[in-house]
Every structure is written in C-alpha cells, then in structure tokens.
C-alpha cells in the first residue's frame, strides 16, 4: 500500500496513468510523445509505477508495451472507499424502506433487493 500511494502521489505519474487509460499498451516513445517530460523522467516514473504494480510491461517482438494494471486500484476501493461507504448505503436503504413502508403500508417493495 505504501508503494501504491507513493506512486499515486505525483501528478506526472497520474498523467501517465491517464495516458494509459486513454490508450493502453504504449511504448516508451509513444508515452513521451505528448508529455512535457524528459524521456529519462518518464522512464523513472514508469519504474515507480511498475514497482507499485500499477503498470505491467509486456514484450511484443522488439517492443516493450506498458499497460495500466487496475488491480491495485481495486484494493484501494475495497480498503478505503467500499468499507467507509457501506454504512451510509445501508442507512439510506433503511430510510427508503421506512419511508415507503410508512407512507403506503408494508406491501410496496419496488426498487428493493436485486
């Protein structure tokens, strides 16, 4: 998790992730093309992203392609969003149920469990 947050804590690296999200599987040259960074800077940022497992590198022939790996972001979602959001969602569901039951009796279940 430390490596992950450290990797995300830099605007240049977040830009690189955005670039890969828009167009996945790019070479270093392609990534450098539209960025205001030196090739060396991009290389260093990619190394940090790879260490955090946010970027996966695959070889295709002579080319080295960089892919965005979303799996660690899922971990952040589960650890830092999902867990904190769940009580509010449950509270909202209970409120809805109470209001619907109170207004119309206990027969309406529209929009309930799916």
């Amino acid at each position, binding site marked *: 998790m430390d490596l992950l947050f450290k990797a995300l804590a830099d605007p240049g690296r977040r830009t690189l992730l955005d670039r890969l999200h828009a167009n996945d*599987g790019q070479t270093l040259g392609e990534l450098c093309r539209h960025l205001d960074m030196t090739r060396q800077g991009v290389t260093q940022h990619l190394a940090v992203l790879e260490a955090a*497992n946010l970027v*996966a590198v695959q070889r295709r022939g002579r080319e080295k392609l960089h*892919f*965005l790996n*979303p*799996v660690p972001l*899922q971990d952040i979602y*589960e650890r830092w969003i999902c867990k904190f959001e769940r009580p509010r969602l449950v509270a909202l569901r209970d409120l809805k149920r109470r209001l619907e039951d109170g207004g119309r009796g206990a027969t309406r279940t529209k929009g309930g469990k799916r």
Partner: protein
Amino acid sequence: MSATDRSTFVYVIFIRTTPERLWAALTDPKFVRQYWFDMTVECAWTKGSPWRLVGADGSLTDTGEILEVDPPRRMVIRWLNEWKPELKAEGPSRCTIQLEPVDAAVKLTITHEIDRRESRFITAVSGGWPRILSNLKSLLETGAIATTSHPGH
C-alpha cells in the same frame, strides 16, 4: 498485426501462495465458484478441450477452448461471449493466464485480448477481472472473499 489493431487488458496480482495451489484454485470448479461470482467452470484442462462458464442460474455465459496448457505455469483460452449477442458478434478473444513464482508469492498475469479496436467485449470483462482477482487473492491468503457483488448487479 500491430498492437493498435487489438484491444488488450492486462491484470497483474501477487498472491502469497504456490503455483500449484494457485493452479488448483484456477481450475477446480468448486474453488472457482467461491471467487467468481458463483460461476461454474467446466473444462478438462487439456489442450483442445472445450471450456465453458455457466452462471448461477444455469445459463451458459461464455464458451471456448483450451489453446495451450502447461500446468502450473500457463494456459491460453479461446473465449467467446454467449451472453450478449453484440459481444458474441465480436468473435473470440484470447485469455492468457501466466503464473510466475516471485519470492514467497506467485505473480499472476491475465492478458485478455481480441483482434479488433475498441472492443466492447474487452471493456465488459474489464470491470469483472479486478474483483475476481481480488477475491481470489483474499481467498487464498486469508480464506475469505472481499466482495460478492457481480459488476452490473
């Protein structure tokens, strides 16, 4: 073919287990069901054998064939969606599953690709893989899964 004529997603996860245990977790239908949204996988896991994914309600969601298999290191599945006509119309995709031991863990790499640009099928599966892999990791490392909801439900 250049990479731009393809749609590719790559998923990498490190799981503290052995390649043998992870291979079993990927191929044992009872185990798969626990982390793959109640889906059942049907396959003999030999080269050329048919591969099928069946939903909890018994509906056939995906079909295919094992193109390569090298336990506990690598397998390649020809994968065709059967669930939505517009996804099936895109034709078969390839899913490569690679296991590499790294220190006390296994690096699991899933590469899912199809020979067309901006594939809707590849986008559709992209929502599912991170959750499936996250569940698989939790199950192997702690014995419990993190999320149970299927994307789109």
